[in-house]
């Protein structure tokens, strides 16, 4: 329990650091961030006077309260769930994020679960049947693990997407058919959601699974060499049980490294959403950046950080559950 509380402490501290950095940075960096931001905005659109005023306010320029007071107010706002107001969408940031979040979470949870289960299962298979044809999976997995997420997304769009040029099987833009279907609890809407989620989910799953395959395979090979696996085989246990003995132990370091994996999957998903214009918080982060809607950017950053930290905490709890030795120390 104590170890878990320490992890919780680390996460709370991490959240604090991230939020403070995000608050402080534009305000303490030398030079004029507003001018730089506006200059960048001219690449992708125009920044009118309302936009410039909003940027100045959000970056703390021309604001007449002290840094400390702004900081206190910032935290006060956060505590009330007030993440500011988005000038480009003309709505409170928190309600906007609440509308974006289900899209991202749905995709993320499904993709992570599928890739974890598939990846570890395939990794176990490859490790157990070493020396046969399954060894060919390894270079393929290495390649897929090295491909950046958004490039894989572009390739899939080219081959399978309806905005691509080859097979045109699946829709490749937006979260659902915004022209043909009305949102609500009706079948066409749900079917459209599923159809539009296939390519983004496939991208995330393909790229993430490869990483899990490699990690699990390496761990499994090391574990198979342990004495208890040999003894289990000597005891005459059925092969499935022996593999389970080994896999159950090999899983531990993989789960322990889940922290890093989650960060990578979230990063990948943000980029995938951008490519597919999928209406999750990743895409809207990109959108807000290009529109210089800093309060929305900030709000999304806060939410992403908290989601990832929560996922890490869940992974730590899961680890304690599956490793009895950790329970003793925890």
């Amino acid at each position, binding site marked *: 329990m104590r170890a878990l509380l320490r992890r919780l402490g680390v*996460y709370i501290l991490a959240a604090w650091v991230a939020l403070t950095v995000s608050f402080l940075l534009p305000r303490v960096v030398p030079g004029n961030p507003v001018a730089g931001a506006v200059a960048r905005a001219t690449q992708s659109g125009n920044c009118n006077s309302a936009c410039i005023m909003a940027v100045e306010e959000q970056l703390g320029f021309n604001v007449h309260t002290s840094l400390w007071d702004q900081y206190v107010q910032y935290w006060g706002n956060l505590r009330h769930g007030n993440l500011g107001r988005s000038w480009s969408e003309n709505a409170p940031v928190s309600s906007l994020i609440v509308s974006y979040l289900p899209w991202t979470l749905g995709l993320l949870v499904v993709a992570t679960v599928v890739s974890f289960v598939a990846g570890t299962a395939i990794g176990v298979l490859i490790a157990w049947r070493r020396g046969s044809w399954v060894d060919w999976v390894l270079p393929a997995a290495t390649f897929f693990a090295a491909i950046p997420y958004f490039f894989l997304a572009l390739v899939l769009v080219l081959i399978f997407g309806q905005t691509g040029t080859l097979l045109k099987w699946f829709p490749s833009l937006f979260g659902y058919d915004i022209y043909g279907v009305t949102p609500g609890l009706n079948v066409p809407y749900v079917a459209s959601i599923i159809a539009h989620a296939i390519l983004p989910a496939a991208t995330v799953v393909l790229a993430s699974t490869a990483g899990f395959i490699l990690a699990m395979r390496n761990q499994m090979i090391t574990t198979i060499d342990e004495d208890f696996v040999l003894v289990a085989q000597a005891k005459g*246990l059925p092969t499935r049980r022996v593999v389970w003995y080994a896999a159950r132990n090999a899983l531990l370091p993989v789960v322990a490294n889940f922290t890093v994996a989650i960060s990578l999957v979230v990063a990948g998903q943000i980029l995938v959403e951008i490519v597919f214009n999928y209406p999750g918080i990743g895409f809207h982060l990109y959108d807000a950046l290009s529109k210089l809607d800093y309060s929305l950017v900030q709000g999304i950053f806060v939410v992403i950080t908290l989601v990832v930290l929560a996922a890490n905490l869940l992974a730590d709890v899961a680890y304690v559950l599956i490793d009895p030795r950790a329970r003793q120390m925890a």
Partner: protein
Amino acid sequence: MTINSTSLAGIPPVAGPNAELVFRRTRILRLPRSPKVIAGVVILAFFGVLAIVGRWIAPYSPNATDEQSWVQHVLVPGTGAGTGFPASYYPLPLPPSAAHWLGTTVFAQDVWSQLLAATQATLFVGLLAAAIATVLSILFGVTAGYLGGGTDEGLSLVANVFLAIPGLPLLIVLADYVPSAGSSVLLVAAIIAVTTWAYSSRTLRAQTLSLRNREFVEAARVSGERPVRIMLVEVLPNLIPIVAASFLFTALAAIGAYVAIAFLGLAGSPSSSPPGLWNWGEMLREGFANNAVRGGWWWWWAPPGICIALLGTGLALLNFGIDEFINPRLRATGLSRRTAKKVGIGLRPKLGMTPVARHQPLVVLPNRSTTASTPSPVHDAAEPALEVRGLSVDYGYGDQAVHAVVDCDLVLRRGQVLGLAGESGSGKTTLALAAIRLLRAPALITAGQVLFYSKPISGDGPVGTVDMLSATDEELRAVRWSEIAVVLQSSLNALNPVITIGAQFDDLLRVHRPFLSPSARRARAGELLDLVGMNADRLRSYPHELSGGMRQRAMIAMAIALEPQVMILDEPTTALDVVTQREILEELTGLRDRIDFATLFITHDLSLLVELADEIAVMYAGRVMERAPAASLFHAPRLPYTHALLHSFPPMHGPRVPMAGLKGSTPDMHDLPGGCAFHPRCSWAMPRCHQEIPKLAPLDGSPREVACWLHRDDAIVPAELALPEPDVMKVRAQ
């Protein structure tokens, strides 16, 4: 996504007095020539060359446009009729041609030239960021690991915080807010380094922690060296393999991060002011923002992406190669098709089924005397259960094979204990495990025969003779554990750490006694624990919750669970204290009396065998060198080696004599001396001993056997080796 899967904690450090010596000995410079490493290095070299010479071989400047030459124009999406914006056009991107190897972009720029420039910048920024990150992680990791205490807590906390914060979002925020991020390479690299250093620092800290307690570091500390110097000169050189591996991994992550933020438009572009660099992410961004995908202008957006993927694959392959180098288990099992066919075994050795070389004739020579047929005072009533004839086991294949066991005979009789003694590396465990084919690759049984005369005590095992070396998987499974059980040396590793003892008993009983109900199985498990002197409550414990002695008892309980006919005990009490050792040996004797199994007791402690065993066999360098009833061996050894072993133990009473011990050291199995392997250390070595290997042969008129030229032909036997047999031959009371 790449997860660094290296189990980096297992590198044996190279202790050295100074950094250069350590560096020279560092084996990272002698990486094995595996195809993965070669492929990885080739890919990286290709990109390295491109990065260096790129600018000079580019046919055009990456920014140069040549609008006049390209006539066909295309409407910019979002302009023109019906959109409210005046129609504007840009040049149609041209597919690859002789003039433009990779075609052109929508701004009439040459893609190949852009790619070359982009490669240079991307690699430069990536490597720079990785260098900064590596320096940071060494600083935090090594300092935290070495200094420990409060410094460790503080630094580790910082590292954990940075590890927990999601990388890309933080990177986006940093890159967005720092205004000149786009134009300053150093700034971009620094920002990327901030988000990627934390992972490696954790690994470095772990390795430093284990190095800190090594003798050479302690010695340096005691001799008064300053901590900074110790860290730089003693600790850091040993970390070079990990640092190299994590540098590569971080470089891959840094390049990915750089491409990602460039794709998002945060790293500046050549057309902004101040101008940024051409890089792969920027090319992708331009393509994506200008509808390259929908337009089908694959030559524009595919090359940078393929480059990233290729570079990532190359780095991953190299990382893989380093992984395999550090952890040899990850390497391919080393059995090429040709070797396998030559030796006569299958390509993929199965776990738990040691292969037997098929081309060797498994025939026992007719005039070999087996002690099975020789009656003796000790062996009268006992019939053989397991008989090993002429067993030879190699590790490795072909010319580099090490002959771990050569031509050994053993007979295990019911109700009797055969002790197998010898030094570490003499082949005792190999011999025992080979008899039941439980050795791991690269073990190979090259000759011999193992016969198991089965008469099951309980359960439904096979009846009659089982030829272990030619048995199939099912036959072995029927015999192993239920009729022949093994207790290995280190019992913590022999028990599955994540499930309870009770669950492991249950697994065992469920397979072999399927007719028992779950509660009956639990009851039986409780009985078995009781038999070895443990409380049945312990069924609910995990292996790590038991002490060493109790774990060993649990292993023994599992071994006798099915009432086996043969028990093989491999140094069961070596790792335990003397008191527990005595208790366990008494339990074993009691069990043996009760169940009447044949026992093979392996140990290096001869004194233990003297009171426990009925017969003792002594092994040296893979051969059985002497076999005799226990009392005879102890009181009247015939082999010089046995004599030396016995006189290594100081007697409890008697006059004080200087201890001689055994001179020399254990032979290297790769490079055995010619003739008798013991002759360099033998006090009575003759010229013949240097040339011919003595075979195990019976001494005249006794059940003893010895392999020594001193007892052969007309050699003169030294007085120490000709002591009279003890008067009373102890016969085990039944």
